[in-house]
């Protein structure tokens, strides 16, 4: 352990991840190998690699959605570095509630739930009362320019860009000290893209540790403090 890593928010060590496709004769697809990455508070590390090299796979491994074959994903939770990759379900859920937020590419929610409550939900899960949670949710929806008349509606009929902004509001509302961003600006027009990038940059400046995937170079330049090129695998899968 080096001194510089003592206060890392995320420390990935020798991570390897592949997939076994049982329906196709047990083929092994190796995707990630020997990934070492540390992320500190106030850093925004943008993953860089050609398509198919495993950017999304790494991001999902950092969130615990993908299990890893080898290595550790240490995450600072309640002051201690804990291995998220081997965390039992209950601890993983707690880490997600308190420590790690995730902006996915698509909004996946129960139909019929009003937008304001979808955004407020991560706070309710932490035990914040509903009035305060809705208040914080409305501040973010305003900042993301979602018209107030839509807040009482379920987002199923919203445009792709509006749904994505609801998704971002939901991911930002709980002020997680770590944020994972999977192309948060992909389906946004220029104006909304810059709104979202401003919010992300503000969070980073306040000390949030971030790892993200951004396809357009303008977004990348706006938020990245460091580019992490995914290493090539030593051998073909």
């Amino acid at each position, binding site marked *: 352990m080096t001194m510089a890593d003592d206060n890392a928010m995320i420390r990935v060590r020798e991570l390897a991840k592949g*997939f*076994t*496709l*049982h*329906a196709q004769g047990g083929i092994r697809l190796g995707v990630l190998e020997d990934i070492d990455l540390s992320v500190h508070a106030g850093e925004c590390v943008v993953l860089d690699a050609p398509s198919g090299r495993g950017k999304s796979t790494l991001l*999902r491994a950092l969130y*615990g*959605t*993908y*299990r890893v074959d080898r290595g550790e994903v240490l995450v600072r939770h309640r002051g201690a570095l804990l291995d998220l990759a081997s965390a039992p*379900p*209950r601890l*993983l*859920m707690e880490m997600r509630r308190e420590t790690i937020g995730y902006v996915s590419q698509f909004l*996946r*929610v*129960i*139909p*019929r*739930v009003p937008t304001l409550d979808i955004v407020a939900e991560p706070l*309710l*899960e932490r035990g914040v009362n509903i009035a305060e949670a809705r208040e914080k949710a409305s501040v973010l929806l305003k900042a993301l320019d979602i018209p107030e008349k839509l807040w009482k509606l379920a987002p199923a009929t919203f445009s792709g860009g509006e749904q994505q902004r609801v998704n971002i509001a939901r991911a930002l509302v709980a002020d997680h000290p770590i944020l994972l961003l999977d192309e948060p600006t992909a389906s946004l027009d220029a104006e909304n893209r810059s709104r979202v990038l401003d919010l992300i940059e503000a969070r980073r400046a306040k000390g949030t540790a971030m790892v993200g995937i951004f396809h357009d170079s303008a977004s990348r330049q706006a938020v990245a403090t460091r580019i992490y090129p995914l290493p090539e695998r030593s051998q073909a899968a």
Partner: protein
Amino acid sequence: MSDGPLLEVRHLTRRYGERYACRDISFELWRGEVLAIVGESGSGKTTLLNAVCGRVTPDRGQVLFYGADDRARDLTALSGVELRRLVRDEIGFVHQNPRDGLRLGFSAGANIGEPIMAAGGRHYGNIRRTAADWLRRVEIDANRIDDLPATFSGGMQQRLQIARALVTKPRLVLMDEPTGGLDVSVQARLLDLMRGLAAELRVAIIIVTHDLGVARLLAHRLIVMQDGRMVENGVTDQVLDDPQHPYTQLLVSSVLAA
């Protein structure tokens, strides 16, 4: 607020003749958690659910339930009277077919009032007010309080059954395919309702379903069963997005994307 689990199932095994319905099943459940059990017919899901509420006695294993006093009781070792009392006070059950969970000869209000009376409620006015309040919570017009459930639609009957199961504020609710046989739009409404109530009342839910979409939206955690075995156990997106076991991979890849 206690810090331990609400339910601990340990090495639960149940055989019917030579066939294992449940084989060495162990898991834990905490308050406020929604756990889905998925798997095809005959995989042991319903036997497991019935063992958790004492309707099926396992051949081996324990079902430890932590009641309001935080004391562990092994449901497999309780006397008939103790078991009935504990189940009545602490565990609600929602059947796939509302007719199995409702009293069809009683009014909607009486269906909600009966569990309150069984738990010791005596004041008619209070019971009726509570029943009306629960009708509202499950989105049934309170004017229907004196109507028989037979005059309700399938979705309304299911919501009435949920009100009946939750009115006494049990700590655990078991649901066997609660959205089976309902229209998709009605299902969505029911899911929304159940999730809201689970969060509000901090009730733990075990839901048996073969619908992975329902599991994804409703459950925090997922158990996959095949041939009586628990082949996968994890946080919902882990199991659905990175399934490890061949059977889970088959199950996930068989779903038609909507």
